[in-house]
């Protein structure tokens, strides 16, 4: 740019041409803009505060329970509550249960955290062929379960052991077989330690169940039980989980059921709503902000701002906003969760995951609604920006 050096004196204060604007200047300029547009800044932040805040509080409250279910309850036997998507006996068409979102393992964990709940077992089932050494049992019930299932569903182990926590944790290919399966596939040999195929996949027999007899002419021993996590890995995690649980000692079963019902209801759409409210709020305000500032961008460019000057200013503005808003939201959300925990029977746990997710939400919002507009703002042609009304 040598040819454009001013001939007249006094240009000494313009230093090196490729130099970036001092960060301090950009920062100050951003802060000044934010402070002088208090209402706009507040509105933008409000969206993020609400978004991250509801994320943290809801996630803490339900600690991962993300389904919105109106779960089916029934008392099985005297003191077991079963929570499932579908009732045991379905009447009319099954569309009635379509809207019930499936119950997940995390739901089971959340139910387990209820103070009024004693023991919890989760299980999922399907039917598969079971094979060993040329022998096949067709359409046998395959149940993916947790260790607690043994006690809750009253299984007695004849030989070997039941599924353990470690089986579940490690997703082991362990299988506990029912008496019918043992008799059919292993007429002479001891099944323990042998390999069977469940729907084509290899499992090692770790236990054999005592016979439970039959009910209404159907055998209760024609089944195999595998770790629930292994089940999900093998057959997919989309099946709705059935949660079986018992009330805590000394707690009436009705109270436990009320609590579970409340947990299940709390989830109804809250997470979705929070994300929607937060996201839309941020989007609206940011978009309005960029649009209404198009002219400002034009003016800044007309008086010498470069592309990068504009981009960094907008970027820093949204980083400051999402940063402050996100921090406020996380703190507020955690506060709400802990308050609810203190005054209601709902379990709450401010998890690292919740905080991380909320922070990620803030960052993503900043990126999605900050970086992109900032980039756009920087690229605006001055003449068009100035024309903008």
């Amino acid at each position: 740019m040598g040819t454009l050096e001013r001939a007249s004196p006094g240009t000494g204060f313009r230093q090196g041409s490729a130099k970036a604007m001092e960060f301090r200047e950009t920062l100050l300029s951003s802060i000044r803009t934010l402070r002088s547009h208090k209402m706009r800044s507040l509105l933008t932040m409000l969206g993020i505060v609400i978004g991250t805040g509801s994320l943290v509080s809801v996630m803490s409250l339900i600690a991962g329970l993300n389904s919105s279910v109106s779960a089916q309850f029934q008392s099985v036997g005297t003191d077991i509550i079963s929570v499932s998507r579908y009732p045991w006996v379905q009447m009319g068409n099954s569309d009635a249960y379509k809207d019930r979102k499936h119950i997940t393992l995390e739901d089971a964990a959340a139910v387990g955290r209820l103070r009024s709940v004693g023991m919890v077992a989760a299980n999922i089932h399907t039917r598969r062929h079971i094979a060993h050494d040329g022998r096949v049992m067709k359409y046998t019930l395959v149940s993916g379960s947790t260790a607690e299932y043994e006690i809750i569903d009253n299984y007695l182990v004849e030989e070997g052991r039941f599924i353990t926590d470690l089986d579940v944790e490690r997703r082991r290919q362990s299988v506990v077989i029912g008496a019918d399966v043992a008799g059919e596939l292993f007429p002479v040999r001891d099944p323990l330690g042998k390999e069977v195929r469940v729907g084509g996949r290899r499992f090692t027999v770790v236990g054999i169940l005592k016979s439970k007899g039959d009910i209404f002419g159907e055998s209760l021993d024609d089944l195999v039980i595998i770790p629930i996590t292994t089940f999900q890995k093998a057959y997919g995690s989309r099946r709705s989980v059935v949660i079986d649980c018992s009330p805590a000692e000394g707690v009436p079963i009705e109270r436990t059921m009320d609590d579970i019902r409340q947990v299940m209801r709390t989830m109804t759409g809250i997470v979705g709503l929070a994300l929607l409210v937060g996201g839309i709020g941020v989007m609206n305000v940011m978009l309005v902000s960029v649009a209404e500032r198009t002219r400002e961008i034009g003016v800044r460019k007309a008086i010498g701002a470069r592309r990068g000057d504009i981009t960094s200013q907008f970027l820093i503005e949204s980083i400051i906003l999402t940063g402050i808003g996100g921090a406020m939201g996380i703190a507020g959300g955690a506060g709400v969760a802990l308050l609810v925990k203190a005054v209601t029977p709902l379990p709450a746990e401010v998890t690292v995951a919740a905080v991380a997710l909320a922070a990620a939400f803030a960052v993503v919002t900043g990126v999605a609604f900050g970086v992109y507009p900032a980039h756009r703002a920087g690229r605006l042609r001055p003449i068009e920006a100035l024309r903008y009304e």
Partner: protein
Amino acid sequence: MLIELRDMFKTYEVGTQQVHALRDISLSIEENEYVAIMGPSGSGKSTLMNIVGCLDTPTEGSYLLKGTEVAALDDDELAEIRSAEIGFVFQTFNLLPRMTAFQNVELPLIYGRAARHTRAERVWETMDAVGLRERAHHRPNELSGGQRQRVAIARALINRPSIILADEPTGNLDSVTGEEIMQVFRGLSDAGNTIILVTHEQYIAEHATRIVKLLDGRIASDTTT
């Protein structure tokens, strides 16, 4: 030569239509000239100012600013020229509403990468030049139209540009205030600045030493008084 336009065209595409805003403009302006550009609405005055001010580039032809071909420069290079060489004064002032007069005037220094310790002094000096020291910490909405335009002029002056461009600077002012603003330009011209000013009004144009008249995007007349 400070400004040299040669066979310059500016054509806008509006849908399938072509709008020839400027046609075959050749114009040279020397340092310390005071040029008034006149012409009916839509004759291309603003388009010409925007190109001279490096806010826009010609569709065809050449624009040499101090010998540098501006049409060949990229966005950031144009921004640098605007920062160092051009001072804009708009009809609608275009001050940033949430900033004080002082901050508005300081902004071009920041974009020009002026060191911080030199800035305040420069701003005060320039505020004095337009007679606005007392109003420095007011926001634009606390200032009268004439005062706002003075702030805008100070902002245009602060980087000591080679050219001061004013697109109908008195268009939004009453005639008395307009006349005051013209006195400011007169002073700037006397101090050696190059000024190009767009106006409809003959009495405003008469402040200038040269009057260029546009008609349908062409130069209709170019007279030096």
